[in-house]
């Protein structure tokens, strides 16, 4: 990590009447990184982004955006960033093309070639009026406007909600191009596949606080790997090793969960007893997040994240023993 942080938040508090939407939130985003911002519904992701945009006034804490104060220097900072909300609402009597031009001109101009290229890549019809666009097409209008802007930072709040898989692919490419050009991205998303593909680091927010932050590899180390082993010798004592949980012993066969940083010790112990077969599964991304989303064990948030990440299960993840 070089240079000053692009986003640096410490102890941010934002209340809406009795609701404490942000409760001492800390967030750091370094230049050039794509930072995933994850958390269950109502955790405070959009609120954080709206504070960063100077739309909401913070109640306590410090917030620095592009080394400036997002509340006082809102307008000048906005020229250096672009924002895509998850639920784009367009002017009903302006066409998509007019909206893109308007937003570009408000920033001081739009490159016609870039605009045309983006419209083509997203297959957007710019002649429709705001209210006749479908959900995904509204989203595309905002994405074209954002990627057409010449900026250093993208604040994306569930930007791909409603996009078809092909356009989502286009979005992924555009983010990668943007990062290759030195840009920084804060990406709030519920689509774990997207996060896994794009993000260098992630922060997980729950009830207005960051509960975990780091690279995906870091996070994996905080969770458990499942082990299914058949031994040559007696399995006695395996379940008493440090970091081993939920062990089920059936004759020579042992199934258990092991904290990933204790995996090496477990493998050593198994090796002493002679390994016949061994299946060792790293935690899937869902398991990783469910742990943080749900109450403690993660059984609560299953519905909202599980289905989106289906098919991603077990894919090209981490180290296997």
């Amino acid at each position, binding site marked *: 990590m070089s240079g000053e942080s692009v986003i640096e938040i410490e102890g941010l508090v934002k209340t809406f009447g009795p609701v404490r939407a942000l409760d001492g939130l800390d967030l750091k985003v370094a230049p050039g990184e794509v930072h995933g911002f994850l958390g269950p519904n109502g955790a405070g992701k959009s609120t954080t982004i709206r504070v960063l*945009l100077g739309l*909401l006034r913070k109640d306590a804490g410090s917030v620095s955006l592009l080394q400036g104060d997002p509340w006082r220097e809102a307008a000048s900072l906005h020229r250096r960033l*672009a924002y895509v909300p998850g639920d784009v609402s367009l002017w009903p009597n302006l066409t998509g093309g007019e909206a893109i031009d*308007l937003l570009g001109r*408000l920033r*001081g101009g739009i490159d016609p070639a870039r605009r045309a290229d983006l419209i083509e890549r997203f297959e957007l019809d710019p002649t429709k*009026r705001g209210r006749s666009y479908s959900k995904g097409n509204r989203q595309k209008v905002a994405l074209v406007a954002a990627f057409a802007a010449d900026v250093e930072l993208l604040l994306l709040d569930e930007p791909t909600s409603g996009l078809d898989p092909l356009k989502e692919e286009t979005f992924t490419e555009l983010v990668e191009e943007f990062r290759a050009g030195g840009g920084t991205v804060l990406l709030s998303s519920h689509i774990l596949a997207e996060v896994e593909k794009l993000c260098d680091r992630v922060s997980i927010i729950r009830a207005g606080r960051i509960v975990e932050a780091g690279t995906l590899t870091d996070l994996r180390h905080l969770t458990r790997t499942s082990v299914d082993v058949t031994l040559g010798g007696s399995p006695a004592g395996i379940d008493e090793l440090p970091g081993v949980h939920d062990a089920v012993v059936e004759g020579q066969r042992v199934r258990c969960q092991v904290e990933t940083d204790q995996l090496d010790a477990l493998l050593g112990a198994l090796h002493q007893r002679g390994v016949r077969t061994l299946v060792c599964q790293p935690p899937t991304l869902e398991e990783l997040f469910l742990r943080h989303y749900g109450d403690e064990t993660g059984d609560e948030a299953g519905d909202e994240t599980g289905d989106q990440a289906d098919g991603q299960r077990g894919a090209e993840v981490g180290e296997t023993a």
Partner: protein
Amino acid sequence: MSGLSGSLLLLRGHLRRDRWMILWWSLASAAVFWSQGGAMANLYATQAEFDKAAASLEGNAAFIAMLGPARALDTVGGQAFWQSSAFCAVLAGLMSMFVIGRHTRAEEESGRDELVRSGAIGRYAPLVAALLAAVVANVVLGLATAAGLLALRGDSPLRGMPLPVADSVASGVGLAACGIVFSATALVAAQLTQSTRTMYGIAGIVLGAAYLLRAVGDLGNGVASWLSPIGWYQAMHPYSGLRWWPLAVMLVGAAVGLGLAVLLFGRRDVGSGILAARPGPPTAGRSLHSSLGLAWRLQRGSVIGWTLGLAVSGLAYGSMGDSVEDLVGDSGFAVDAVAGGQADNLLDGFYGTALVMLALLAAGFAISSAGRPRAEEEATHLESVLVAGVPRQTWLAGHLLVTVAGTFAVLLAGGLGLGAGYAAMTGDLDAFRRYGVPVVAYLAPVLALSGLTRLLYGVAPRRLWLAWVALGFCVVVLMFGDVLELPDWMQSLSPFHQMPLVPAEEFDITPFLLVAAVAALLSGAGQMAFRRRDIG
């Protein structure tokens, strides 16, 4: 059968949502009738005094244009009905428009309607449920009004007391029927366009036209009054030879409106209007270059609509000038405090009142225009603009400029329309200068109301409707201030009350500048507060 299933279920939900709103509108209407009736006893100690006042009112064209045909003004009931009926018919019309709008077009525009329609709900059920809600609302309003009149008791030396029960009931029932007609026209309007804003525009035009047509008719030969639901209501003649058959005219009118709405609804897709949205330009034109350009683009339609509306209203008032003179000829008692006894002054007095009415209409534009930023904010369009690097102040100033310039245009259109109307009837081109242009004096009080709106927008954006209450207050002060003997300090809260009644009274720059300063102060304070608050 199945096309209507679920109507009652929906109706119950609507009434739940609307119950407070219906209650307030009904109380307002009941209070107007009741207080007008009550005021007579306070105002006039003897029947002789009452007769004298009635005779002078009968010849006052300004009041006839504002209120309705002068009938039995020497009775308490006749006076109460005359003073209140047109105003309350407009109240009922506005209530109907909002009840219909929020349960039909607004639901469709937001997409909530689809959730409802996906349930076990007949195709026509949302339409019918909305109309039924409006019918219930109007019935409650009518009953409250009748109850208010029936509650007027007490010994009074004045003629017509106690009020005949049948006439009091008819005043309420007729009012409800009149509101139901406006519900039906609003329902038709809701089928025409995709946008709720445009729907309210169309329904508002219908209401305004109804009010103006009856004014033209009441001053002239009466034909035009028969084109207006308000005219139908007043044709029931409560307290002056009550007749019930105009009630049938209103019910038929409502049925025709409902039929038309159902027909139109059957020909369109849910979510769209009869007037379809066409594709537009793929790139933005030159005017969409700044947040000011956007503000103009967003308000253009409304500025043009209101300008035309005021021009037509002005024309209508202008063309009444002839009838005013006839009325003076007919009536031996055409003497009035304002007119000072001379025919010329009488015309000045009439146009003085007409200009205030036009200014109050223009205030409707000024308030809705100053409230437009809130709609932009609620629809999250504001954040897109801000995030594109536009400072908050610049954005709001763009809307402010459109509001001020638009208000000027709308107001002037009213005045010029009035001049044109009078000139067309009499060939007297001086009417523009004499009766039309002075309307500009009302720029200050109208902008004071828009300044109040801006202050509310900055400080309490959720309470923006209070600006409409303020406008209602100004109307009450103008129409009923003296009859109700509202205390001076209260009347002087209305910025319109501060202004001389041009052209009947001399224009005075001091109150103009004072009120303009208040407007600027309110607006500036709103702008400052907007800088400090959360968006959304």
